[in-house]
């Protein structure tokens, strides 16, 4: 679509200028909130009330970040969001690893070892991608209680794995559908079995979809709020819940700089992941959603 021939008339040049103008305006719309968040997070409170959103910090300070990390009040407790930040990691990492592993095996079994009813199994699982999670909240709360893991990190890991495998299975299935079945046939003739074929033949070519699955699960679980607020106690909360509590704790003066620093801290891991690996993610994900 990019190979459109253009004449370089003055009108065309004006058009190009306009084009860039619009694109830059749009870029400002997307980038400014982040810029404002960052600038506010390093301003002292006095500067915030004196200046405006876009006034540059005169005396940049990391004080609000330190406070957000270690001292700010989140509800009853005032020990910052640092602990919750690590909570999130403790939940996210196992949940991502487990759900990606299960999704990869599911996708492999569904595409390369089709059996009667395997399409039905896939449709059954796919449905899990689409339900509004409100519909499972109450039974989940009770089930976690029965299992003895309510309000624990293990409980949250379980919840994220359970509702993540629908997505990871979808990703891996759509990817493995595109891998020629003859590779598997050849390996079968060579004498390799189910797991050996997966390990030696499929897994080494799965890097693109592993990236997609890991990034998707990482951002989904890191950014989750609903399950976090519903199924955690004060010491197992993920950072999103802590951030919300911090912002809504109404004791004393509203410290907007601390709010913004806390928001930055909560946003950083997913932003870093996105900046480092985002392009692989978009490539993989859009390929899947365009082709269906």
């Amino acid at each position, binding site marked *: *679509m990019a190979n459109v021939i253009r004449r370089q008339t003055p009108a065309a040049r004006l058009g190009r200028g306009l084009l860039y103008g619009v694109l830059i305006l749009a870029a400002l719309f*997307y980038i400014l909130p982040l810029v*404002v968040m960052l600038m506010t997070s390093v301003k002292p409170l006095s500067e915030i009330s004196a200046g405006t959103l876009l006034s540059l910090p005169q005396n940049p300070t990391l004080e609000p970040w330190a406070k957000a990390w270690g001292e700010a009040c989140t509800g009853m407790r005032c020990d910052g969001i640092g602990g919750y930040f690590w909570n999130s990691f403790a939940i996210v990492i196992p949940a991502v690893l487990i759900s990606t592993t299960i999704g990869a095996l599911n996708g492999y*079994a569904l595409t390369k070892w089709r059996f009667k009813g395997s399409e039905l199994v896939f449709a059954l699982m796919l*449905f899990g991608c689409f339900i509004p999670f409100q519909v499972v909240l109450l039974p989940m709360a009770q089930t976690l209680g029965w299992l003895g893991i309510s309000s624990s990190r293990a409980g949250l890991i379980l919840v994220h794995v359970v509702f993540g*495998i629908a997505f990871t299975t979808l990703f891996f299935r759509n990817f493995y559908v595109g891998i020629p079945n003859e590779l598997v046939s050849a390996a079968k003739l060579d004498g390799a079995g189910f797991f050996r074929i997966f390990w030696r033949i499929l897994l080494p070519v799965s890097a693109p979809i592993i990236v997609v699955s890991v990034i998707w699960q990482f951002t989904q679980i890191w950014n989750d*709020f609903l399950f976090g*607020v519903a199924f955690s106690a004060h010491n197992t909360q993920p950072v999103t819940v802590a951030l919300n509590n911090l912002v809504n704790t109404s004791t004393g003066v509203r410290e907007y700089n601390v*709010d913004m620093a806390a928001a930055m801290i909560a946003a950083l891991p997913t932003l870093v992941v996105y900046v480092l690996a985002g392009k692989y993610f978009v490539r993989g994900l*859009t390929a899947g959603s365009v082709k269906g």
Partner: protein
Amino acid sequence: MRDTLPMKNTAATPLGPGTKRSAPSGSLQAWLPRLVLAPSVAISLFFVYGFMLWTFVLSLTSSRMLPSYNFVGFGQYARLMANERWWVASTNLMIFGVLFVLICLVIGAFLAILLDQKIRQEGALRTIYLYPMALSFIVTGVVWKWLLNPQLGIQAMVQSWGFESFRFDWIVDPDMAIYTLVIAAVWQASGFVMALFLAGLRGIDDSIVKAAQLDGASLPRIYWRVVMPCLRPVVFSAVMILAHIAIKSFDLVVALTGGGPGYATDLPATFMYAHAFTRAQIGLGSASAMLMLGGVLAILIPYLYSELRSRKHG
């Protein structure tokens, strides 16, 4: 070779079509795929289908603080229909959903087409448009709450530039607060729609555009008449994803408006959570969750139907 001779004899015996099937020697291998899938199927049956049924059962009971199994038929649904707050939440979802989906589509398609004109620094621009998707709705809500704060945010900034009469206090205006949700949600998701469209545009065969050029069509016309119709599947996917985000929207409301002012920005998701978890109305909350599920199914079933049909018909 000697031991193969008897085999030859059996080979010569004609075997009817009903010959018994001895299991292949790798019978474990044959069952492994099913064994591997079994836990996921069990999980799906219990945690998705079982829980949906469970919630439905709860919605037929008078449960309040704790689930009880005192059945009251569809009484909770009747209560829901009579609940003004539920109607506000549903109406809000309609407004929010329609505006959010439409605006995201328009902005996403527009930016994708602009980016498709051999732009310098396309990669950087694309990254900027897309990064909000990586954020939590809680972060988005916190940031926009700050930006929309009348005393310190955009309104104050524009006023300080000399436009004293400038008003942008939607977040505290019960009639306008719902639109602040639209702004923040569009900010977060429109870049993602752009990426979907851009990938779709890149997937279109160049020769179609060249043929249209030879036919003398102008560039906007080519996009409108030739290119966009090819992107119908992308539009479809985007609408599904966006509608899904809209119906599930919970965190954004919690962080940006807290459902307020009053309950002016309640959505079914926050309504459900509030009744089920904080207001001890488990029966009513379950009923509202079931209606949300109904809403999703109303969108999902036609989608899956047309997807499957179009796949079958190539």
